[in-house]
């Protein structure tokens, strides 16, 4: 990729802001992304959108009379990303809990961190998107959720969105006869 094709975004701008708070509706999640993030996610498919309810029933608009939550449809499902901790993150579970704890094949606890909220339509516009996730949590679990989502997003961003320039140089080696 040539340097002039890399979109320069001023350093110091916010790529993602998420806030989590326990509420009457369960867990209220607010997501605001930089326009490049929403554009990137949209570009993973054809731009087609789907009602979140078609994929899972945990996410709900803040109020029943609010418009339905819409998410971008993915073209190919990206592989889950592994974190250094052994946990994995993915963006294929729209409408599902944000953290799912499972045991891996060795019986060790592994968390699946669901970053699918990045696929919501409108996260980069105005105040972003706010929605409820069904479920109850202790305060400590919420703090852990914040840490896991933060780590997972860092990995996701570095893997897919951080600009990288790869040069391949082919040289002839010196040979002595």
């Amino acid at each position: 990729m040539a340097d002039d094709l890399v979109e320069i975004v001023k350093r110091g701008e916010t790529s993602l802001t998420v806030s989590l708070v326990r509420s009457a509706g369960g867990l209220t999640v607010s997501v605001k992304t930089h326009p490049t993030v929403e554009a990137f996610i949209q570009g993973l498919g054809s731009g087609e959108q789907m009602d979140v309810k078609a994929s899972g029933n945990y996410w709900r608009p803040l109020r029943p009379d609010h418009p339905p939550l819409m998410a971008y449809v993915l073209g190919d499902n990206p592989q889950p990303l592994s974190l250094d901790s052994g946990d994995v993150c993915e963006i294929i579970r729209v409408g599902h809990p944000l953290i799912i704890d499972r045991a891996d094949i060795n019986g060790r606890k592994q968390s699946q961190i669901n970053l699918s909220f990045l696929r919501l339509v409108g996260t980069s516009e105005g105040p972003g998107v706010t929605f409820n996730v069904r479920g109850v949590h202790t305060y400590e679990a919420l703090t852990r959720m914040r840490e896991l989502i933060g780590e997972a997003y860092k990995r996701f961003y570095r893997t897919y969105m951080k600009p990288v320039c790869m040069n391949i140089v082919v040289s002839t080696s010196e040979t002595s006869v």
Partner: protein
Amino acid sequence: MAKQKDWIPLNIDKQRGKARNRVYRVGIELEGGWDKLAPGTRLVHDGSVIFTMPVNAIGELPSGVLDTVNGSPTYWGSWLKVNHPHHVNHTCGMHVHLSFKTAFAYNKLMTAQYPATVLQEFKQWAKKEGLDEDHPIWYRLAGKSRYCQHKFFADEQVLNKEKDHNQDRAGHRYTVINYAYGRYSTVECRLLPMFDHVDRSARAVQELLDITNAFLLALPDKRERKQHIEHEVDSELDRVETRIYV
């Protein structure tokens, strides 16, 4: 995850009698023996209920969803009067399920302070009731019963969708308060034994409701801090060079 170290009772003395009812619905499971069951009721098998004398019907009688409003046709007190077992002993428990209109009230009970407060308050209640030294409630209050262990597993328990009988695995349901959100959307108090008289059983259920309402009021009223995640754009170009020699 939530910590057992927070197992410190909250002082709810000031809130007693002042708290409005925040409990939406109630469910009760009665264990014991019945000479005759009320029409339309059916027992569920419970292997932990044991009688040495012959009793017509032995097991567990679960209620449907009951109301907290006295006078309602499904008021829990009326159901209890009609269905209370005729025979009870130390093997019988009375489990009480509580549900709430909002997830927020449920969330607030997800602290080890809640079961700690329930224990503390029932110790005082049992003294006030004048229960004998050998009454099964003392055994439960002392943490000696494996059916109501003094442990706190809220985050694990809310994920349980099935009822299993493992009393040792992490997140099992045999605790003073079982957070049965995944299965019934309720908190289940497993501390109480069956009492030999319906009036005392009713007072025990009412005590649990009073403790819960006072606890919700006694919790610090400060607005919960939002958990905030922020990530900055990193547009610095990573350069990777691969050199191949031919």
